[in-house]
């Protein structure tokens, strides 16, 4: 008996922690650099970063949601609706603040509903957020009447295309939110409880933590971030469009999965998600340079997720 306890107590040897996603990212970059001389130019690399920010803003809260063993399928549709609300508000009031408040408000409202369905009504996250996806998409068609919202003022476009101190605005916004999420996950109670929500909810209950509120807050954070992303999206496409961000949740979930965040037991990290987002960004950019149609790019993203998870699986499968 004691022999067993002792042998079970031996710590596992530390595996060299190179995540599958980093290998995939470097490999992809090397391939594209070899095929297209343009790929490694400063302009193109900056482009990749700028174009990755919207996805990053969605993928980071998605990481936290997935760490609670949840999922938010409504993110793309909520982003679309928030973008339309923002465009309509800014066009009619010429106020960026009001527009952003409207977009974030829409996101928070949907996040609250998602969180409430999941934590209080105990509806599985997949089903609950599939339902709100439909609602958000429908509302987007209603408020826009199926039409694009045009006439976006210059100051809104500047948010995406402008620079501050020589650095493109989106990169600054992305960096700021990355720092925020890092602090949130590693230096606050909220971050600790997120891991516990996915890892062992009973432990929280026994510790006297009211975790239902935390769970609602995680989904509300996701909604709010969709509202922030709406600002960049609207500025980028210079319009509000009722199908602007359809399927964006797929890219976000793919980036999270690529990054090595597990769908079980509260195992996840924000840096991995950043790598996952960049990998998706590099793939899209490289395929664009090679003039591959966007439909094929979606398929390629899916294939990439499988490759990265396969690599992670190989490493965690011990002899």
């Amino acid at each position, binding site marked *: 008996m004691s022999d067993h*306890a002792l042998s079970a*107590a031996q710590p596992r040897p530390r595996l060299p922690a190179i995540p599958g996603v980093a290998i995939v990212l470097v490999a992809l970059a090397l391939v594209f650099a070899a095929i297209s001389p343009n790929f490694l130019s400063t302009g193109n690399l900056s482009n990749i970063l700028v174009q990755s920010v919207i996805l990053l803003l969605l993928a980071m809260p998605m990481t936290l949601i997935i760490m609670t063993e949840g999922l938010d399928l409504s993110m793309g549709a909520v982003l679309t609706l928030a973008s339309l609300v923002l465009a309509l508000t800014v066009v009619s009031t010429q106020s960026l603040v009001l527009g952003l408040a409207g977009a974030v408000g829409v996101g928070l409202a949907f996040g609250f509903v998602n969180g409430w369905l999941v934590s209080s009504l105990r509806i599985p996250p997949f089903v609950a957020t599939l339902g709100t996806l439909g609602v958000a998409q429908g509302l987007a068609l209603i408020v826009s009447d199926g039409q694009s919202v045009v006439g976006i003022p210059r100051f809104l476009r500047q948010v995406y295309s402008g620079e501050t101190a020589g650095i493109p605005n989106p990169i600054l916004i992305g960096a700021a939110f990355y720092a925020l999420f890092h602090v949130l996950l590693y230096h*606050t*109670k909220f971050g600790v409880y997120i891991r516990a929500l996915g*890892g*062992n909810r*009973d432990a929280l209950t*026994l*510790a*006297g933590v009211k975790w239902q509120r935390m769970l609602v807050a995680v989904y509300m954070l996701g909604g709010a971030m969709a509202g922030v992303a709406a600002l960049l999206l609207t500025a980028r496409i210079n319009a509000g469009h009722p199908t602007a961000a359809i399927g964006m949740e797929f890219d976000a979930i793919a980036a999270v999965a690529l990054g090595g965040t597990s769908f079980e037991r509260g195992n996840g990290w924000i840096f991995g998600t950043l790598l996952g987002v960049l990998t998706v960004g590099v793939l899209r950019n490289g395929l664009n340079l090679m003039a591959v149609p966007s439909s094929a790019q979606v398929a390629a993203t899916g294939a990439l997720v499988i490759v990265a998870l396969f690599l992670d699986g190989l490493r965690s499968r011990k002899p």
Partner: protein
Amino acid sequence: MRAAVKSPPAPEVVEEKPDLGTPLLELKGISKQFPGVKALDDVSFAIWPGEVHMLLGENGAGKSSLMKCLCGAYQADTGAYFHMGEKVEIRTPTDAKKLGIAVIFQEFSLVPYLDVAQNIFLGREFKSKIPGLLDRRRLYAEAQKVLDRIGLEVDPRTKVHTLGVAQQQMVEIAKALSQDASILVMDEPTAALSDRETERLFAVMRQLQAKGTAIVYISHRMAEVFALGDRITVLRDGKNVGHAVPGETSPDQLVRMMVGRTVDMSYPRNFRAPGDVVLELKDISATTGIADINLVVRAGEIVGLCGLVGSGRTEVARAVFGADAITSGEVRVFGRIKQGGPDVAATEGIALIPESRKTEGLALIRTVSDNLAVAGLPKLFPNHLFSPGRARRSAEALIKRLRIATPSPNQSVGLLSGGNQQKVVIGKWLAAGARLFIFDEPTRGIDVGAKSEIFALIDQLVAEGAAVLMISSEQAEIVHVCDRAYVMRGRRIVGELSRSELSEENIVRMGMHDE
């Protein structure tokens, strides 16, 4: 509290004790009902400062339920709690915490991807001076102090999922100790620990005792009961059956109190001379931790496999069935070395009737007929085409033969009684042509009347030449039904009892005694 002992205790039980003053915590008349089971029935229990109170009982006697009521994880249906003589409520874990109650749980309450320190202080995080942030330096410093105290040499920044079972158990202990509780509840804390770690834990317990901490200690190890206990309470079938003091009782007396009942169950059994060896395990070890398992089951025999929950009984069954990988040794079935997984086992005539019949044994929303056909599909339909008529005729024959009480073969299995559901599981394997049956807790959740019917059926199986290996926590059943029995402890077989040696006392003694 002495007066609250309602069940007639064994004569040796110490009834009166010197007055110790007001108990630190007293539970009076606690009852807790679950659907179909009365987990606790009018249990009273008191603890005084600085004592170690041992809680004894067989599996399912209500020890863990009582602990869960004590820490607010369950809410008692009836009964009252008194803290230093004052009536209090314990409805939630927070209520219990406020009274200074901390619990070391047997099933881990740890979060796998948080580190050791974060787990120890979960729900009691240290706030930094910067609002909203955590004081990580203080967290790791405090955690290190607790770890030093219990002598656990692990970096507090280690993620808990990378630790072994024993180390995780030590982290659980650290977590409870860090709460500076006045009442510490330990549910089999040493079950996963090595001797050295156990010693360390006992040393810490003595320190706590000296400081006036009351400790409630659940154990299955007699040696611990006598080495540590100041007072002993024995539970049986959810009832408080007596108190004792270690100096005035003996292991034999305690075992008798735990087993208690004058055995009035009689199951029909026709013993006969056994036939050929059907199942033979030679020096089996498996990834699940079982080691050096040797056992033999012959045709016409019912062989019991007993021991405490967690002693490795189910793991043996799974190894035979091929559900877990074997690391050494060999399994011989009908004289041939068995290889491969459960799919092969089924075709070789081995049937596993699992403990959780509703999740592993049956498809509840499907019909009786479907469930009866599912294991025997290759045998019933050799040309791979399903024929509803044939399935129904086979089902009707089995329903008649096993006397399954169902209005029709098309009834959903979920609507049948527990006993009849069990018959369907047995019937499904009969249809598959099984000749070696492994039963894991065959009478769990089955009412008394149906039990004897199930045993009659098992007797009929062996009469027809089948071999049966039966895992059961109900020692009375093993004693009455089995030809022989093996007793397990700590994932090994520690003894074999012949028909004449089979008694509940012998099983309990072998299953729980230290060396």
